[in-house]
């Protein structure tokens, strides 16, 4: 039963930490001749995103620097918090979303980024507001509207979130991720389409608007499932990260993206407080920050580099599909991480409350 499982989660994490540290000690002994190099443990998000990171970032860095890089994936905010608070820090670099970063930084659980160690040629292209104290910006992904072009012809496709919510003018099934990140912003934009005045917004009104879709929308448990719904015709339109659409298009599915009113979500590399190989983590950031290195994962992931200089190394046909590219950048806006990070508990509660209203 669930309640019995909750706490052993901590026990399990502890056990995992023990086994991991045993593994690390073992690994350390093996590469002992490489005295100065040491190790680096990166925790990323898995899937094809991490495959690309591994191929283009982690492995080349390991070769160049002699640092032994080990990778892990799969975590959430709760696990990171437990890991850092309990002092069993298993990772030196974590790939985290902006609101997770904000919340962890506010709780004092991240190491400060030493920007003086980041080479000047890396810093030039990073927008000033992305130079965070506790995190290094890497890529941004966009929450977009995607639709099945065989069910919804391009000229009759919904263009705004108001259209997406208009089930009479735009019939068809919609899909979105549910409980973990309900589409509150999109619902708000459906009520009032002004991107500039999106934040702060009324969560209750947003949840009412989501609820008003009733059976016209199905909610998935994860983004992979949303993509699956779009791919197999379970849904005709979806609220989905742009990177999940690329593989569908590549596989020949009749799917298109509508970039209008998209929201961009930056992702960061952060160093958890008490990370065992902090110096290597900074060394890694000093490598990965180079525009031509950053640019390498754009094509395989469809996620755009935050450093604008990286676009010099991205072919135009790839750049067109990335969030932050010159053609579509004006159609969207970045999320307000401070607002979202604060609203997090209320969003979680609002989801449950929506059911009974």
């Amino acid at each position: 039963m669930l309640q019995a499982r909750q706490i052993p989660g901590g026990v399990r994490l502890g056990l995992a930490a023990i086994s991991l540290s045993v593994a690390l000690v073992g690994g350390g002994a093996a590469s002992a001749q490489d005295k100065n190099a040491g190790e680096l443990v990166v925790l990323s998000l898995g899937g094809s995103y991490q495959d690309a990171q591994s191929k283009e970032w982690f492995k080349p860095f390991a070769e160049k620097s002699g640092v032994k890089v080990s990778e892990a994936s799969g975590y959430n905010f709760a696990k990171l918090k437990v890991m850092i608070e309990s002092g069993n820090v298993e990772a030196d670099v974590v790939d985290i979303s902006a609101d997770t970063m904000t919340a962890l930084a506010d709780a004092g659980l991240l190491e400060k980024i030493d920007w003086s160690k980041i080479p000047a040629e890396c810093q030039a292209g990073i927008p000033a507001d992305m130079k965070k104290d506790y995190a290094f910006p890497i890529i941004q992904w966009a929450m977009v509207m995607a639709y099945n072009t065989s069910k919804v012809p391009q000229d009759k496709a919904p263009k705004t979130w108001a259209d997406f919510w208009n089930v009479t003018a735009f019939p068809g099934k919609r899909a979105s991720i549910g409980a973990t990140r309900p589409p509150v912003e999109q619902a708000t934009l459906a009520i009032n389409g002004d991107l500039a005045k999106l934040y702060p917004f009324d969560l209750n009104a947003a949840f009412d608007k989501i609820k008003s879709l009733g059976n016209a929308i199905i909610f998935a448990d994860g983004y992979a499932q949303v993509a699956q719904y779009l791919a197999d015709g379970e849904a005709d339109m979806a609220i989905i990260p742009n990177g999940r659409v690329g593989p569908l298009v590549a596989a020949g599915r009749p799917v298109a993206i509508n970039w209008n009113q998209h929201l961009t979500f930056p992702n960061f590399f952060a160093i958890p407080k008490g990370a065992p190989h902090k110096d290597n983590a900074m060394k890694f950031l000093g490598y990965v920050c180079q525009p031509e290195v950053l640019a390498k994962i754009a094509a395989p992931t469809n996620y755009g580099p935050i450093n604008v200089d990286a676009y010099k190394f991205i072919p135009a046909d790839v750049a067109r599909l990335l969030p932050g590219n010159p053609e579509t950048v004006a159609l969207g806006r970045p999320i307000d991480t401070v607002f979202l990070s604060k609203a997090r508990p209320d969003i979680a509660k609002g989801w449950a409350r929506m059911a009974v209203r």
Partner: protein
Amino acid sequence: MTDTTFPLPAAAGRGPGRFKGRFPWLMAPAVIFYLVFFGWPLVQMLWSSIWSDGFTLAGYTEFFSDPVYWWVLGYTMLIGVVTLVLTLAVGYPVAYWLVGLNKTWMVVLMAFVLIPFWSSGLVRTYAWLVILGRQGLVNTTLMRFELIDEPLPFLGTHTAVLVGLTYYLLPYMILCLFSVMNNIDRNLMLAARNLGASPIRAFFAIFVPLTKPGVFAGSFLVFMLAVGMYITPALLGGPDQTTLPLVIALQINEALDWTLAAALSMILLIVSVAIQVFANRYVDLDKMWGGAR
């Protein structure tokens, strides 16, 4: 009475206290195991529900002051009861039928009950996504026979969640009923018939009362599991199918309000225990878990 043919829990016919007096230390490993892996986490959970930078009842206050949690708890209990009734309605005839088969067929058909029982719950729930989807088995079949024009929306409905839960928990019910039914002496039915009872009367007057322990054991198991189930409502349901375990998971992973999550867990536990205690006043639980007779 016939001997047991299947090594199921009910086959253990000895009283619970047989070894107690003589070798108490034999219990020690089990007791230590339970204290470390069950007792301690339970204490920790109770602790984290009342302690967050100091003593607090915030989690409990929030539960009692906000009707949303009452609704969710009520829905969770309702889902548990309906699942129980459905599994009982489906499981009882199946178990009855299985017991009556000859041994070869019984083993073969029992595999159909046990193989899903052994498979991963996640996979079995995902299978229902494929079956109930808009392009799924049910909808495409109905559309092919032109019974419907538009695919029926199954996913994200109470029906989908109940179907998923019933399917998932059916083996538990069947195994409980089967073990009890298997131990019922069929000669009692023959005797009843011999004394002039109709087959239906013999069934309801003799057989059904004898299966009561299995019915209660199965019902308890199914209810408790349904109430604590997380995967099925998460995957097959929508916002209207939010159960208490889902709210707890959301508090832990998204809202990070672990005090509330612990308090909600305690409340779910207390309600479950209360139901068991309440039932204990009307049903002999010792007998139920201890054996068929």
